[in-house]
């Protein structure tokens, strides 16, 4: 049977590292972010405050994964246009071919794989658009998060120099305007977007597992080994 299948490379090593770095960061960001928004577990009341530092550690963790997110998104944004492996932007341009493919993949999902009229060896338009939605959500999280962070530095003091809050103000002050005018609107929007990302992730996992089960091409292996297997005609 193995001779009937050919291996297709779908993700580079760098791509997979970024995927898992993001996945872990996201889990940490959600756990710590929910705590920051509404501390949902209590600390031992008998311990001295100096020993606990629970909120401070949660915020520290939240900021660290935010920075990892920041850096990987810059890399991803670059690869989106300039990757030597697969330039993802080519799949989201609304050309006739991409639109047809997008709807064919969608029909495949809705008809429970009874109709499959597209080439599943390479990345498809449907998933590319879906990933783009995720990246836009993520960019919003980063910019709104940095706005919340820098608004707490109103005194302008930062241990790494004044250029840092200055730059963040220039880059993120517009998020106040678009989310409703005050920094609290940014906060509310940041929290809502978290829920959209959670929903995004749940469908993403479901869909990859579903493809693996119904397409029988080992799609779930892409994110671990970098390749899937397609039947040779």
């Amino acid at each position: 049977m193995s001779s009937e299948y050919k291996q297709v490379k779908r993700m580079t090593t760098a791509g997979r590292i970024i995927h898992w770095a993001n996945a872990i960061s996201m889990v940490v960001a959600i756990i710590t972010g929910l705590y920051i928004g509404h501390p949902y577990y209590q600390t031992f009341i008998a311990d001295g405050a100096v020993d606990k530092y629970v909120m401070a550690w949660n915020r520290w963790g939240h900021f660290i994964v935010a920075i990892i997110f920041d850096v990987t998104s810059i890399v991803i944004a670059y690869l989106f246009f300039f990757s030597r492996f697969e330039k993802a932007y080519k799949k989201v341009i609304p050309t006739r071919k991409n639109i047809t493919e997008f709807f064919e993949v969608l029909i495949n999902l809705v008809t429970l794989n009874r109709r499959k009229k597209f080439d599943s060896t390479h990345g498809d338009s449907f998933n590319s658009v879906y990933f783009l939605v995720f990246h836009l959500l993520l960019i919003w999280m980063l910019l709104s998060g940095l706005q919340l962070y820098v608004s707490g530095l109103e005194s302008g003091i930062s241990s790494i120099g004044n250029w840092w809050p200055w730059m963040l103000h220039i880059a993120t002050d517009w998020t106040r305007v678009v989310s409703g005018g005050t920094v609290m609107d940014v906060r509310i929007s940041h929290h809502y977007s978290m829920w959209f990302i959670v929903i995004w992730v749940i469908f993403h996992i479901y869909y990859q597992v579903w493809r693996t089960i119904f397409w029988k091409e080992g799609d779930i292996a892409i994110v671990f080994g970098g390749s899937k297997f397609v039947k040779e005609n």
Partner: protein
Amino acid sequence: MSDRIEGVKKLFTSKSARVETNKGESYYLDLFERCQTRLSDLRASQPANRLDFSEVLKDNSIDRRDFMKWVSATTAMLMLPPMFSPLVAEAAELMNRAPVIWLELQDCAGNSEALLRSDGPKIDEIVLDIISLEYHETLQAAAGFQAEKQLEDAMATFKGKYLLFVEGSIPMGMNGQYGTIGASGETFHDHLMRVSKDAAAVVAVGACATFGGIPAAAPNPTHAVGVMDVVKGKPIVNIPACPANPTNMVGVVMHYVLTGQLPELDSLLRPKFAFGYRIHDNCERRAHFDAGEYVEEWGDKGAQNNFCLYKMGCKGPMTFNNCSIVRYNEAVNWPIGVGRGCIGCSEPDFWDKYAYERPMANAKIKAPAGGVEKSVDEFGLGLLTAAGIGIGIHAIASAVGGKKDDGGEA
């Protein structure tokens, strides 16, 4: 190479939105001279009332020592070095040369109350008593045409020189007919525009005058707005909070009397000396926030131990004001000090977006779909459930009727 190092150093130390608490010796020496000139000019001018500051202090049994303590504190609050103390003391005595007109628009008069209802007049209140309050709609004895005459006299006499204090929001709905004043039935809007035209500067005090406050809360039936939304082309200072702290009002007047200028402002036109830091930054319960020690319900062990009020909805981490430093009623106490959270009253839209007394995540606010009030988390969990049900249906349908590509075991 050394050029590049210098360049990097410069980049890493360049000025930003920071609150500059030390502007360097040459700046202060220069400012000191300008203040001296300004004060001697004021002293030469005719006082607008005959109140003698030291007499008033004596009548209220406040001795010189208490006064000098107040002078030091006020100098520090204005972020001036100690050498300015004698000038601040002198400026306090010359307060009766600063003509002030005070308008009362759509609000509860809470800011005037904050000035008046102290247990005994403290120095802040006395300083505000002694300013030459030419016209105050709530306090004056005159009414009707008589009051109108007084206003016109004050405006003509001090044309271009008076500070205009405004308390209360401006209703814009129904052509402003929600609020009218005086014998001629002038709308608040027209009243404000007429009086602000010849003012040296406009000082909006309280949440209503600055950002619309409670009258502007949803659904804002009167279409209330703040002063800075209607008055254009005038220097405006916002002193928000509900009520505004008399200490900060004194600070702004003091700064004006002392230097002839308005203090440095932030992006919302609030003086940086008062609104440059968050409540949270100087909160006495801050250590409990970082430790994760929160009051879970009113009167619990945490409350008895002065734990952080964040879970009871305290908005100190998002609110810029100096309550945690100067407190209220001559530093007697303040909201978090008495064991209840901050409601963010010095921030725009505070009533809708800050004052719900819960953490934001489980506050009842308008859902993005509109209408129904839900907490953010309820809305998110609702979406999540809907997505889960959708995925479940798809999964079951696929299992029952889906077609697996492999011709083999399926």
